[in-house]
């Protein structure tokens, strides 16, 4: 197991009003993302528990792109990773933002 933590400035606040969302599953090659709207609008934090050790550099690349593309201001992401590939991580993060931006149902 390895713990990673990333802190970024976001261009703008993530849309919508939902306070939390959760997506994905903890399984081999997959990951679970809990997202909470608990930070100031310009802030974004990702905390990762991963089963795969030594991939910090790839995580960093994935997250830099993610923050750039989706500007998830105000959101904290807690990630339980079962050794997912970077493309799966990207998709889950995009889904998490999209989910919290949706109106409450």
């Amino acid at each position: 197991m390895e713990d990673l933590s990333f802190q970024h400035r976001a261009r703008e606040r993530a849309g919508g009003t939902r306070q939390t969302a959760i997506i994905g599953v903890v399984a081999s090659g997959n990951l679970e993302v809990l997202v909470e709207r608990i930070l100031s609008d310009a802030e974004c934090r990702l905390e990762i528990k991963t089963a795969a050790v030594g991939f910090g550099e790839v995580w960093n690349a994935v997250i830099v792109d993610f923050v750039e593309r989706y500007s998830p201001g105000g959101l904290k992401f807690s990630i339980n990773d079962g050794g997912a590939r970077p493309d799966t991580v990207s998709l889950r993060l995009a889904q998490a933002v999209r989910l919290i931006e949706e109106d409450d149902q």
Partner: protein
Amino acid sequence: MTTWQRHREARDARIEAGSRLARGKIVEASDATRLMEAVIRPGDRVCLEGDNQKQADLLSSALLAVDLAKVNDLHMVQSGVVLPEHLDLFDRGVAKKLDYAYSGPQSARIARMLFGGKIELGAVHTYLELFARYFIDLTPHVALIAAVSADRDGNLYTGPNTEDTPTVVEATAFKDGVVIAQVNEIVDRVPRVDIPADRVHFIVKAEKPFFVEPLFTRDPAAITEGQILTAMLAIKGIYAPYGVQRLNHGIGFSTAAIELLLPTYGEKLGLKGKVASHFALNPHPALIPAIESGWVQQIHSFGSEVGMDEYIRARSDVYFTGPDGSLRSNRAFCQTAGLYACDMFIGSTLQIDLQGNSSTVTTSRIAGFGGAPNMGADARGRRHPSEPWLKAGAEADPESSALLRRGRKLVVQIGETFGDKNVPLFVEKLDALTLAEKLNLELAPIMIYGDDVTHIVTEEGVANLLLCRNDHEREQAIRGVAGYTEVGRGRDRNMVERLRQRGVIRRPEDLGINPLDADRSMLAARSIKDLVRWSGGLYTPPSKFRNW
């Protein structure tokens, strides 16, 4: 005096020798090896029928057992090197030289044998190319083929898996060769005549039906959300804007995902009737929901697929069927259809380089090509216009006169940036090149050349290579969809952003694709059992795909 009929006389002598073992044309299975020894001469070109599906398995075992003093150093000219016996022939010295097209399950062993010098390699072909050579410089002396049934005259019923048989028989029988067929049964009257009796010289009844591999069955349960996202990008980013109606799909999971998204996501986009209506395609079970939903008008097939017989029989408006009601497939005609009458090929590969060249060859595996290089190539002889073909041609060459401008076939490579066991799809140098250097080949085994590829689709986006104006743009367009592979991370970010603004690269968000739609609930069928249900119980999957 010059003799002009030596080949016919030689053929007659071979048939005469074989006839001593036959009653009429029928030879007992226990005499099959003796039949081979009687009709085959050392150094002969022999076509042992076997492709990616059906196999003349009894005849290949019989050939393997020959007395090496009588039969040796054969030159095998065959579509598929698929059964272990196909390579045992080279290990034993029955055969020496090989020209082939496909070697899926034997890809690792064939690589070892090539390195070990056990096989003298002619070339790795695409199917249509090898068939063409049967009529020019690789005409078989003897063809060993497989059929479902024969009557006592030798008329053959090849059934749904007709595949290569008519082509092999045509080349052999009409050029003084000998045709030997293994059949599952001998009947009074065949259900339909696929091969007329006067082209067949000997018949061997096999103890068990010839082997057929269910190569085109993809279990929807194994389709990932990444593949669903990639499939949505292809549908919205390529099928829709070009209006692709006539096409061929590869056999990977990404194209299976497309097939299963047509009745759901495609329907939502209002594409029914506008795309994916006419196919050159094997009877993919994954296409059943789209057929049942009224998307597909017509399918011509290279071969059949295990378990699909009854479904095909009941859907003759869609498939090509004989007077007996069962599928008639024909690989040579379907490959021709894929080359000339389809506007798009979309399939996956194992490696793509920075020029867009792709190959399924890796340093330890030589899988061959099958039909992909043929489907995945622009037909330079094509002359009929169609909307997608003209649009692609205009994108590639906007300056020239419309009336003189060639169209372009859409050749799409689709896949996830990381494949099986996290192996990257994108590489700086193809393993095929390393292999060609090691084996001193004159030509690296490239499946699809970069200049034929028009689009690359990954989960990161669609790269339209038609819109690239130079090699540098092309390289960055490829890097721009290569995700977090080394090739992808080596991109020039500013350049990739400019390409994106020009529409050369389109991301899911550029196409308005909601990542939450990349969910398995979007698949029209999520299991093999769902496919059976869609088919009204007509599809009967092979046992290895049943888990209920």
